């Protein structure tokens, strides 16, 4: 069986669950309803089928996730993805980092920012606005949080509005949630033909 990945990559791996996904054929009406409101409703992933074990939480979590990451106005979608990436590198969720780093790259059509973050982590040399966002997201993601008033001031000095600051807090915090599910309930596995030894 394929080995779990341990290095950050922008090639989205597969996710192998450590607990049993529900059987779609045996799903309750409540589970079927919850499964429909997930972002990928054409093909239900093992991840979502695992989460359907706790259907009451899944049912409310999926719309919350979509509102935080895709809601109109406020922080740009790419910068919300940067908040997600910041949390995912602190929590070493290889799968989440890959999904959201690649979305950031698609949205910005610029691969250099993520390449620097994967190479140098929180020390990556970015422009001031990107650096302030990454700094805040990573410090908020520690346990306990290490975000301080100076980290908040840096966001505002970089030009973030109150609405944008709130959206960043929400996206980084949301990935405190997502990382703990993805990283503890399963393993990221290289897809066929994918170089797992050099994920950076």
């Amino acid at each position, binding site marked *: 069986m394929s080995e779990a990945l341990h290095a950050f990559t922008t090639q989205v791996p597969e996710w192998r669950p*450590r607990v049993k996904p529900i059987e779609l054929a045996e799903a309750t009406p409540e589970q079927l309803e919850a499964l429909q409101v997930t972002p990928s409703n054409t093909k239900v992933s093992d991840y979502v089928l695992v989460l359907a074990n706790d259907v009451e939480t899944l049912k*409310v979590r999926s719309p919350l996730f979509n509102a935080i990451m895709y*809601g109109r106005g406020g922080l740009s979608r790419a910068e919300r993805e940067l908040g997600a990436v910041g949390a995912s590198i602190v929590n070493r969720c290889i799968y989440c980092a890959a999904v959201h780093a690649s979305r950031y790259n698609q949205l910005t059509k610029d691969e250099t920012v993520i390449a620097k973050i994967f190479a140098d982590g929180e020390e990556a040399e970015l422009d001031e606005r990107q650096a302030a966002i990454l700094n805040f997201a990573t410090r908020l993601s520690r346990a306990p949080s290490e975000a301080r008033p100076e980290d908040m001031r840096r966001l505002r000095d970089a030009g973030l509005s109150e609405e944008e600051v709130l959206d960043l807090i929400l996206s980084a915090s949301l990935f405190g949630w997502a990382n703990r599910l993805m990283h503890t309930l399963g393993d990221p596995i290289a897809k066929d033909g994918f170089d797992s030894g050099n994920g950076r």
Partner: protein
Amino acid sequence: MSGIAGNDVVTRQAGVLPGEAAHDALAARAEIVAMTQATHDAALKPRHPGGLSHAERAALASRIARLNADPALAEHYDALMREASASAEVERIADPAFKGSGRIAALIAYTDLASTRPKDAGPGDIDALKQAGIGDADIVRLAELNAFLAYQIRLIAGLKLMREQG
């Protein structure tokens, strides 16, 4: 003008008041505030709690808040614990120094890992829950409880910073 009632756990814990910039920002995301409260209720007081009782959920949440240096949030969960008529044994879970034995020890070990060192999680941590007799669905319930708390704690911490630096 306000789109939020302000009686949800996050707004109350962060102390956000009408007229503040953070309040206006939350009002613009009123739907998210309401859904955040709905996820709190689903993780703490589900209609079908499975093998993880309301009292145990509240006790674990209180422990997680303490491990994340948020004593005020821990008090909120202590109140939920009393509301759920937690036994003296379950109440001990809220104390981070208590490690327990058997099934309780397994719930605590996963919780302490997920809430403070999630990056160190490996396949062995889920195996340990299974070996303690905790079924797959309850493992997911436990993971969701921990994961929700990680979100809520950081959202509150971020809002407090918005107010301090307002």
